[in-house]
Every structure is written in structure tokens, then in C-alpha cells.
């Protein structure tokens, strides 16, 4: 599906890295959810898992933020397709559970933006899916 996007290159990066990932790491759930359309979807492609609609996405993030004491996304390498409203980024994801165990993943996200928010996210993970 091709969407009409109103964001320029800098705004696409800001949406993905600052408005989305920085708020995931800070566990600001409402600010994270503000990045999504009501009928958005998140697909963890490497695990064949799909979360459809904002309520399911909120439930997924609530579980994720409760499961991990510390959530860190860093070392972003962005590929920005301004003409098509798409951005991809590779990054390191580090999660610490409540027993102090750390998990490190080398992931890549693909975002498709409609107007000024996420319509689709596709996630490819290097290990076990924590977004259940």
C-alpha cells in the first residue's frame, strides 16, 4: 500500500527516533501511541506476529514496558525515503528484566507513514521476539 505522507526527511527521522523510540525508552505510553493511526499495524516479521489496531498495539506496549525494567534503543542507522513516506533504521535494542538480566538484539524497523503518523511498522529481529 502506498500512502500520502506530509513529513519531510528531518520530520520522518524525528518521528521514528525522537517521538517514537525515545518515548518507548522513557515508557511514555501515551506519547508512543500518539505516533500511530487508529488502524495502524505492527508486524514482527521475523516471528510472524501481527498487532492490528491501536488498542492491540497499546496492549502490546503495556506488556513490554511492564516486563522490562530498562529499555534502550541506540546506535541508529537511518535510511529515509522521503518521496514515499518510508523510513528504515537498524539499531541495537537492550532490555533489562526485573531480575537484572539483559537481552541485546540487532534489529531493523521499517515504518510506512500516512500523513504524519505510522500506518505500518515492520520489525525484523535478530533474536526472540519480546513484543508479544
Amino acid at each position: 500500500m502506498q500512502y500520502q505522507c506530509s513529513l519531510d526527511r528531518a520530520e520522518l527521522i524525528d518521528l521514528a527516533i525522537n517521538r517514537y523510540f525515545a518515548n518507548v525508552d522513557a515508557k511514555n505510553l501515551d506519547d508512543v501511541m500518539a505516533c500511530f493511526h487508529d488502524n495502524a499495524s505492527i508486524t514482527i516479521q521475523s516471528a510472524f506476529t501481527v498487532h492490528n489496531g491501536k488498542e492491540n498495539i497499546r496492549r502490546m506496549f503495556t506488556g513490554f514496558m511492564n516486563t522490562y525494567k530498562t529499555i534502550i534503543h541506540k546506535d541508529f542507522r537511518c535510511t529515509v525515503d522521503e518521496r514515499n513516506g518510508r523510513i528504515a533504521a537498524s539499531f541495537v535494542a537492550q532490555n533489562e528484566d526485573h531480575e537484572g538480566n539483559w537481552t541485546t538484539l540487532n534489529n531493523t524497523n521499517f515504518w510506512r507513514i500516512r500523513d504524519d503518523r505510522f500506518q505500518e511498522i515492520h520489525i525484523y529481529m535478530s533474536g526472540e521476539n519480546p513484543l508479544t
Partner: protein
Amino acid sequence: MIAKPYEYYVDIVTKRYFHGVDNFDMPMVLDCFDKDASLTEVTSMTTHQGRDTGIRMMFLRLFHAQSRIWHGNFVHTCDVDEESICSQFSVEVTPRGTSKPLRYENANRFYLKNGRFTEVFVYMSGENLLK
């Protein structure tokens, strides 16, 4: 060096690289890579180093193991400024000695210099085929 246009990145990925892989055309495949390129399968953190050494050997093993390879259903995220293209796609392979194709939903990140791949990162939805 004049920047390559948007369509160059889509074409090298689809019309040269994956077309070469799907047709078992080793020269066409290797011509897409810089001689010092690396290809990493991220799920298993397996890196194949060097166009004419590690990458060539990896494709020899792949072509030996499969009787049919098909890549399609592409969605590209292409960044001319960063000389990179990230592609999502479907893969079907049929291992030699079998008749049932295996289906994967994969993604590759390609980083280029002077029009050739210098780094390729592969995410696979199933078992790593790029051993």
C-alpha cells in the same frame, strides 16, 4: 562522483542482484559487490567477507543446495543521500531433492559506494540459508 539516481538503487537490487540470484548467474551477482564487501546474516550473526572469497563461496553453496530460488513482492526504502536501500520481500526456495518450496519473508539492508554494495545485512524469517 555524480550521485546515483533513485532508480539506480531499485534496479541494482531487483534487476541485477536478485535477478542474478534467481537465475543462478554468479557473475551478475558478484558484479553488484565492491571487492571488499561484506554480507552479514543478522539472525545468526554470520558474516561473509570479500566479494571473490567469502561472498562467492556463500553463493556457490546456496546455488548447490537449491534447485529454484525466487525473490518478489518487494517494498523498498531508498535513500540517495545515504547511498542505501532497505528492501522487504518474499523468498521461495526449493531444496534439491525435494519438490516442496519453502517460503520466507525477509529484509535486506544494502549500503553502497560508487554504485556497488559495500555492506549487506540480511534478516531471515526462518532458518539461515546463507551459510
